[in-house]
């Protein structure tokens, strides 16, 4: 799938004696499809032949392991613009990383972060071109979009970890090269951390560790303040 085009260029070599965390998110029923962002003259209408597809939440989920003691170099992350959207609408980025946005479409885009207009260098990104920026503060989030294309929205959440996993359509995820130790597993959905209780996971020195986090029923609701 094109949306799986998010790629990492990890500068540090694989860690010896590291384990892998695999798991499957236990997801609550998906939320209702959001209201149309750009409504035409009419409301959208369900087709009469087949049930409409449920809203897919997994592209907006990110699994992050925080804690541990082994420091890793911040990677360079390539985030692709594919068609009329980002390859993944939400990405988690280790603090200090350089994010490279690559426009693989046929349309030039002029991107800006709502929270910090200076974050992305000004000017359009031509088809095939790139634009990079660096994020430094863990805990910050950036909403990146194109004023001429309101539907084109991508979110960057800056985290204090390089151990990040993206679930597939079924909720399965895998985080490799995890140094042994005890970690706090956190799940980010769209614009907030999902409040969970069973969030500690211990990774063994070798092999795979299974962990299936359960998300609460209100995980996909609005962010709690």
């Amino acid at each position, binding site marked *: 799938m094109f949306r799986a085009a998010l790629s990492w260029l990890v500068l540090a070599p694989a860690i010896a004696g590291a384990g892998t965390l695999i798991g499957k998110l236990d997801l609550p029923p998906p939320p209702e499809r959001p209201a149309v962002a*750009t409504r035409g003259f009419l409301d959208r209408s369900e087709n009469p*032949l087949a049930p409409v597809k449920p809203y897919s939440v997994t592209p907006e989920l990110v699994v992050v392991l925080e804690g541990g003691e082994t420091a890793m170099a911040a990677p360079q992350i390539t985030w692709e613009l594919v068609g009329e959207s980002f390859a993944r609408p939400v990405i988690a980025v280790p603090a200090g990383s350089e994010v490279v946005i690559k426009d693989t479409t046929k349309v030039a885009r002029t991107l800006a972060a709502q929270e910090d207009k200076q974050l992305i260098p000004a000017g359009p990104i031509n088809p095939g071109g790139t634009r990079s920026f660096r994020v430094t503060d863990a805990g910050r989030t950036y909403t990146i979009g194109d004023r001429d294309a309101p539907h084109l929205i991508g979110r960057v959440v800056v985290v204090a970890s390089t151990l990040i996993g993206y679930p597939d359509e079924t909720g399965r995820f895998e985080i490799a090269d995890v140094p042994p130790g005890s970690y706090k597993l956190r799940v980010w959905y769209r614009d907030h951390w999902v409040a969970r209780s069973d969030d500690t996971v211990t990774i063994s020195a070798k092999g795979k560790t299974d962990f299936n986090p359960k998300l609460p029923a209100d995980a996909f609701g609005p962010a709690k303040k």
Partner: protein
Amino acid sequence: MFLSKIWLFLVALGAAVALTIALVMPRPAQRTLVTEEQRRLAVACSVIDILLADDARNRVELAGTFGRAPEVVGALENASAAEHLDESRMKQVRDVGETIMKGISGRKPDFAMLIDRRGRVVARVRLDQDDFGDVVAGRPLIDDALAGFLRDDLWAQNGTMYFVAAAPVIRRDPPVAYVGAVVLGHKVTNDLAKKLVGSLNVDTGFYLGNDDVAGSQAVAFDHGVLGDAVGKLQGGDVARDCQANQPFDLAAGKDEYTAVVARLPGEAQAHRAFFSVFIKKPEARGFMGTLHAVRQGDLSTSSFPWFLVADRPLRGLAADAVRLAKGEQERLREDSHGGKFGSIARSVNIHIDKVGREAKSARTNLDQLLGPAPEGSLGTIDLLSSPLPPRPGSVPPVSVPPPSDFRFGGEPAPPPPPPVAARSTPPQWPAQPPVTPPRGSRTPPPQPVAQAPLRLDDDILGGEVSGPIDPYFKQVYDQFISVKRSCNEPVVGLTYQKFAEKLVRNRDDLMAKTGCREVRFTVYVKDGKAALKATPVRDEA
């Protein structure tokens, strides 16, 4: 001597007052005229809004029909399974799309996009038709279509505005599955603008920010003024812009216009898409202009004092007629109207009485004339269920006005309902029957219709019409279809042609039997089903 001075003073005073009145009177009249023009602009703006929504409904139906073509389903299903799209596949699918496009009667789309379930463009027809393979998923219209929704949108591309509609493409053989989507686009053109205002006696223009896109008349307006007016329309529902916006003055060269603006919805809103409705300002006549406009009849003794009672009898009759139309009274009040107006009222009352008598006498035998309705077509034909035929101008017994009420040409459109209501009613989309019943606990889907040849069936903006279409029969047909759908009745095989033929036969039978001048058909709901009532109308002469 003294008295003569007093008289001189009084006469001079009277003359001064008369002169003052004469000089001042044109101004209020002018203000009234301007106010009326502004009101007309607001109404025209709302009507255009409704027409565009109605057109969107037809376009979405067309997209749905396009997406149900078996060739499209097969082509997109195969493409979805392919890891890479190549040129030969593109050409093959493009030919499929082109063939279907040629079969569309009425206003043809300016482009079509056939998209596989991964969101890749398998082929484009007519616009950028050599481009393929790019991913268009992410655009709200396309994401919704890929998820199973039918909807419309407005796109701005290369300085051109397109009304677009999209529908999912679904494999109906088990297992039912989504295999892609189709998008049809209609360019906003000068012809479209002209047709929109054809019967409204105003002009309109479409804009993307400071750029003209299309218009019914080539007028070079100051875009700054237009932009300022649009800028005041912040937030809220764009459908209310026609009511919320105040008309404003606008200049184009030496000509002065009054205009209203309303934002257009959809993606194009990001490019500040809007439309204007404008008319030339009425000339300020002033005192001398008013004198030139005075006719001999205006000064006749029967209408003295002229400025107070010139149109009072006519206004009285008009108000009486409105009460009659609303059903507040059964007849016109003959005694309240003098002269020729009283004569008109009496003639109308005579006609009402005669029609009422005919209706009662015809009740017993009309069922035999019309016969039972064919299964699944016209529904139950129930004649004269009420003692009196509907009065001219009365509201038909249909809860939702059909699209034809807002059609171009022919009779002038009635005062429009608020556009919000028109937009808030989700359309019922026709479709072929599903092979397998829908899963889950969804509400029963709307009843399907047969796969008729592709056309913008209610193409209010289209120019080409295959065969003669009687506007009245078409209106009745639209109402009937609308009511049947609202009653969840099948409309399979109920084409306009069949419907009209049935009406013509029934009309002719009824006219031959009763000697009536014409037959009026009324759609209503009886026992939860759409029914049709025929009413003979006799010629008074």
